[in-house]
């Protein structure tokens, strides 16, 4: 009896040892086979560590008085001094309003347009006409921001072609570029123009993915095209719309630096100075590294909170979320 028992224990121990050895062998075999895959990913990881993670670590200078001679670690801590300075500065409210105005206005004006364009294109019968319009409306997406802003200045300037057309039609010229109150409209609507075609691609894809049987059933029931848009197409692409809305809302504080910076002049500064252009001026041009970093960090935090908020609201209302 006892002999048998010992034997059993022995085999158990041997089994455990065997299993461990097997596992180790498996791991070694896996590493031998797959280490190269980690090598494949390595350059990407190194890139992100250098240009994303180390700068994230460097964000601490927002709470320090950074001096180049002392380095990031050696510079003295000053707590929230820079953030408070920013809150107290006379530009703070104006910067925040300008940034939020551009982004909310841009979201409200720019979000529905690609959906409408996609629906229009989807219901265009003539395929050549449709293809041509698609090609032309995608094109502005590829114009560089510099060239695009250059075009805005030339075409909307006092001698620009649009003012000439306005004059031919018998109206007074409009000083598009030199009045601060026009800045937001110009910024937002030229953005809509530039991006509408490109943004519509995703909706066109979603529309062509709608089950044709639903359309056929609707046609048999006597639904007109406009009724099918409202009752078939729109509900079908709603999830796509909501996900894109969340993603866009999450970018609300990251209004493009380039365009605002390039369209800025002394005349429109009161509406065109936004947080990112201010960060550039304070940081790169006047060399206040810590102060500039603190402002950038403030911007980043608001941005992230907005993303979480919009995602939460959307999950509650529609059960659709990015995560």
């Amino acid at each position, binding site marked *: 009896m006892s002999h048998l028992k010992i034997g059993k224990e022995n085999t158990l121990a041997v089994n455990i040892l065997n299993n461990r050895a097997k596992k180790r062998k498996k791991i070694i075999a896996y590493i031998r*086979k*797959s280490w190269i*895959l980690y090598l*494949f*990913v390595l*350059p*990407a990881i190194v*890139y*992100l560590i*250098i*240009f*994303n993670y*180390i*700068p*994230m*670590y*460097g*964000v601490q*200078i927002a709470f320090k008085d950074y001096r180049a001679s002392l380095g990031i670690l050696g510079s003295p801590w000053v707590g929230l001094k820079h953030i408070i300075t920013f809150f107290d500065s006379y530009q703070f409210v104006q910067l925040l309003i300008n940034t939020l105005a551009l982004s909310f206005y841009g979201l409200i004006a720019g979000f529905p347009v690609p959906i409408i364009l996609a629906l*229009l294109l989807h219901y*265009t019968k003539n395929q050549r006409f449709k293809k041509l*319009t698609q*090609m*032309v*409306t995608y*094109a502005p997406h*590829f*114009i*560089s*921001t*510099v*060239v695009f*802003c*250059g*075009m805005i200045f*030339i075409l909307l300037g006092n*001698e620009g*072609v649009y003012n000439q*057309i306005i004059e031919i039609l018998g109206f007074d010229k409009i000083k598009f570029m030199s009045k601060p109150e026009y800045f937001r409209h110009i910024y937002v609507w030229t953005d809509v*123009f530039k991006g509408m075609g490109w943004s519509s691609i*995703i909706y066109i*894809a*979603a529309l062509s993915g709608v089950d044709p049987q639903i359309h056929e059933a609707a046609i048999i029931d006597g639904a*007109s*095209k*406009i009724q099918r848009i409202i009752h078939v197409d729109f509900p079908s692409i709603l999830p796509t719309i909501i*996900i894109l809305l969340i*993603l866009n809302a999450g970018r609300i504080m990251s209004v493009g*630096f380039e365009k605002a910076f390039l369209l800025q002049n002394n005349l429109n500064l009161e509406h065109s100075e936004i947080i990112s252009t201010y*960060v*550039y001026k304070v*940081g*790169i041009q006047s060399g206040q590294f810590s102060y*500039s*970093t603190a402002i950038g*960090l403030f*911007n*980043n935090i608001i941005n*992230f909170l907005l993303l979480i908020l919009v995602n939460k609201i959307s999950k509650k209302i529609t059960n659709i979320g*990015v995560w």
Partner: protein
Amino acid sequence: MIKHFLNNDKVFDTIVNIFVFCILVFTLYPIYFVLIASFSDPAMVANGDIILYPKGINVEGFSYILKDIRIWRGYYNTFMYTFFGTLLALLITIPAGYALSRKDLKGKKIIMLFMVITMYFNGGLIPTYLVVKSLGLIDTPYVLIILGSFSVFNLIITRTYYISTLPLELQEAAEIDGCTIPKYFMVVVVPLSKPIIAIMALYYAVSHWNSFFNALIYVNNIRLYPLQLILRDILITGQTVDVTTTDPEVVERLKRIAQTIKYGVIIVSSLPVLVMYPFVQKYFVKGVMIGSLKQ
């Protein structure tokens, strides 16, 4: 009443066509106008005589532009940055996208998280500037090649492409035949990757070609300026071309045709993109489609 009117499908089709036609005209016109204004008589452009078609054909603007060494140098620099930047980007993105598409890669989720985090958080302008500075990359061509040579967004597109096109059976069959991963990648995966390599090359190339911000921040030496910075000087800051001349007559003439030169510069700088665009458009669209698969 209106509802009834819109419910008529023929009316609806007409309205759709009218709208699409208007959109087409409104989008095409600014680009068309820049083109016709660039080789029309400058005085007539200024007077508003040129609205629909070119008049008084005049290529004086172009002749000044082509004589301007800054534009040529900018072109050359941008070409180099774009070429090497795109090459580097492909070498980083394609293998990484493939590796992360494999089901048997352990720790894939952690690596993806590590990457996706960077889409939402970043150190911001100054901390990044300090890193670039400490690497000694300020005022070098390398900074404009390296920065922007990896994008997590493009990686996700690449990975999605591989997940949806490479069947697992293919990999298993290769393994049974004793094919190692590097060999499998080179012999099987890369030849099947032509579409995604084309898409990624175009995405990275366009972003390098149009890139302006990095050069603005990290490069002060005018000899290293990419085309976009030169364009800013001419189009936005209002410098004239050929700034070296002192001949008062030429300077006066340049002032008079300054606008025409701007139109010309837009055309000259956008030419490669404009010429290539109709042929490669479908690849860009394909990239968006793949990107939307897993969102």
